């Protein structure tokens, strides 16, 4: 069992996407969630999806400004995954959602609402980028996500100079913003 400081370290690792920390969280918690899902009308695939979504919820919490974890990491993850799985069961109308499992739970509703919001925005951006298509998508991802400099990008995408690449990037960005905000505004 991890001490609170150990949990905190792991969470900091998750927030910065540190490979070892994420792997440790994975290894220590997966089987618990696997049991939960598989023993309650789920498949191995479901267990994997639920656990990974639970990890993202934990990640979102770890990067948020007002972050604090008042319980053990394991308990929190279990509570989140249980709630996620219940929702999924209800959505597919599979069976009476009466999940048996450990009793100790923490309230996670608020975090899940937050997660749903974030998940929606993630989906919007994902869809916008997909509609943008290549080479714009790659160009923008290289610049804004991988933070590479313009000279490199120009060379890779075959532009004669950085200014040309910048010009192209500008056009792509304007299109992406249009796509994104059209969806974003129609939703809100």
């Amino acid at each position, binding site marked *: 069992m991890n001490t609170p400081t150990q949990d905190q370290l792991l969470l900091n690792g998750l927030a910065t996407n540190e490979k070892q920390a994420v792997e440790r969280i994975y290894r220590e918690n997966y089987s618990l969630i696997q049991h939960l899902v598989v023993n309650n009308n789920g498949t191995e695939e479901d267990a994997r999806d639920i656990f990974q979504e639970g990890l993202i919820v934990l990640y979102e919490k770890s990067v948020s400004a007002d972050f604090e974890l008042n319980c053990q990491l394991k308990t929190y993850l279990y509570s989140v995954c249980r709630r996620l799985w219940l929702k999924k069961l209800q959505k597919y109308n599979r069976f009476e959602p009466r999940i048996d499992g450990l009793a100790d739970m923490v309230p996670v509703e608020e975090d899940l609402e937050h997660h749903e919001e974030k998940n929606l925005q993630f989906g919007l*951006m994902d869809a916008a980028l997909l509609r943008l298509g290549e080479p714009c998508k790659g160009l923008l*991802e290289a610049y*804004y996500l991988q933070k590479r400099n313009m000279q490199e990008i120009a060379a890779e995408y075959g532009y004669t100079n950085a200014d040309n690449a*910048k010009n192209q990037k500008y056009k792509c960005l304007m299109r992406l913003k249009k796509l994104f905000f059209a969806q974003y505004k129609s939703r809100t």
Partner: protein
Amino acid sequence: MEDILLLDATERYLRGEMGEDERRAFEELRKNNPEVDQFVVEHHFFLEEMGRYGATKQVKGAIHEIHNRLEETGEIKPLKSGGSGKVVQMWNRYKRTIAVAASIAGLTALLISGLVTNFSSKSIEQRQQVESLRREVNTLKTATNNQSRVLNEVKGKIEQTATTAPAPKFEGTCFLIDARGYLVTNQHVVKSADAIRVQNTRGQDFKARVVYTDSDMDIAVLKIEDDNFKTFGALPYSIKKSSTDLAEPIFTLGFPREEIVYSEGYLSAKTGYNGDTLSCQISIPANPGNSGGPVLNRNGEVIGILSTRQIAAEGVVFAINARNIFKALDEVKKDSTVKNIRVPMTSNLKGLDRVQQVKKIQDCIFMVKGY
């Protein structure tokens, strides 16, 4: 081109790459130009959104990778239960039982639905849902018939032919509409008769002839052709042309047995079976043999001819509206061999009590016997 410059400046400003002077100049621009300010705010939001998207995507990718690696190294393995949920396990366990149960259920369902359709198809036909109230005479009834005839013989005044006549095939009721010997009954009462005889309440028996039948209206007009028949002065009741009101009390006289039988009830609906407008529904005790009997209201007006009853329901009897008698008589008039039939239009039973009414009416009611 200016837009590119603005974007470039905004991004450098947001990243904090601007020098002190440049930053101050840019902030001044933002303050004075709301469009620029709007652009900066929007772009800031968008870049944050994109940054979050990128980071989350990276984490997702990393988690995915870790899962695959752990699966390869065997640190994550499917649960012993074969990776199937409870339902799948139960399905595997009880597959056979379920199959047997399902096939039994299927067969039962087929059987029941077969039976249901078998029975219900029979009742689709209207004729089978309503029963004609003519009486098929069985041997027992014939015996009583003969008995009464013997009694009548003792009293004398009876034709020899009556006693020697064979037993009738069926019996119904009819009533006079013209004192000279014209009677009305149901078409189904006389439908398959080779010969018709009518008998009054005193047991006198007369030969009769079918003058007219209409199977749609279920009306038949008979004429007594017997020398022993003496015409009446006038009929006590009248035939009502207009329709009758709901809930009006009614009564009927008929021959469900060898003796004339009185019963009373009320008009319960203005249409007959399945909305048939030729007839109406009455609530009255009626039995085979009542067919063709008059249905009268309290003023002694004939409002209908009792014809059928519904098999499935209790006390649902149908009577053919009396105005159809006039329609039938219009048709009869076309036959030149028939004298003009004069239907009684005024009833002299008004205001009398029921016993007196029936006393006067019963002489005009006859039993129809078909041979």
